[in-house]
């Protein structure tokens, strides 16, 4: 059994990569491998935007990520600096910048890049999508 860290650098909807990342992650945990974290960076942080509204006849990736966390306790971490630049902000960051709105909430976490270093050092493989 292998332990994976997954790095998602692609936005939802615009590209297929983030959907592939989800399918890989699901297959890994269903196959009894472990994922010590899914780390969202660059445009990948848009996956953590809670304000996405997905048409009812399309696959809801935000909900799928949330269920992956709920069912398999896989941490969902978004890089705070990459996310903030793209309007994906936690309530704390929003308050500190005098913004009325925020768009990142549990089960996603807003973390520093150092968290990724920790994840990678305790995994067998880093897989980027």
């Amino acid at each position, binding site marked *: 059994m292998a332990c994976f860290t997954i*790095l998602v*650098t692609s936005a939802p909807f615009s590209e297929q990569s983030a959907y592939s990342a989800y399918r890989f992650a699901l297959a890994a945990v269903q196959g009894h491998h472990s994922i010590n974290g899914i780390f969202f*960076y*660059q445009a990948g942080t848009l996956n953590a935007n809670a304000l996405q509204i997905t048409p009812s006849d399309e696959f809801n990736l935000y909900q799928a990520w949330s269920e992956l966390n709920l069912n398999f306790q896989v941490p969902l971490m978004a890089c705070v*600096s*990459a996310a903030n630049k793209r309007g994906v902000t936690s309530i704390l960051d929003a308050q500190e910048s005098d913004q009325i709105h925020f768009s990142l909430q549990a089960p996603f976490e807003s973390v*520093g*890049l*150092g968290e*990724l*270093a*920790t994840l*990678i*050092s305790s995994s*067998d*493989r*880093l897989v*980027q999508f």
Partner: protein
Amino acid sequence: MPNLYADTIAIVNKSAPYGSANGQESLDMALALGNFAQPVSLFFIEDGVLQLLGEQQSHKIQHKAYHKTFAALEFYDIEEIFVCRHSLTERGLSASDLAIPVQLIESAALTTQLATYRHLMVF
């Protein structure tokens, strides 16, 4: 023979600067990993070599001059910076056009070197 690079992360840069945020966010990543004492090797291939050019005036297109930060890599103990010689030559460039000292690497050696890393990111 022990693999010296098993615990090192390779970051491969293949995008030109400014057209996408890849270059800047890749450098942010390298510095953050270096800050957390995670060994890192950097690779510049294809259009990625353009990021290292010494003469860049990015303010003219409303961009941060992030290439100046490459000079700080050594303070983060990131000293292995490999640049594909073929990619440079293809673009009419040589190592003297670059902002920082680098190790030029041949195409065949590049693939052999990359194969030694357990963890790899591409930007």
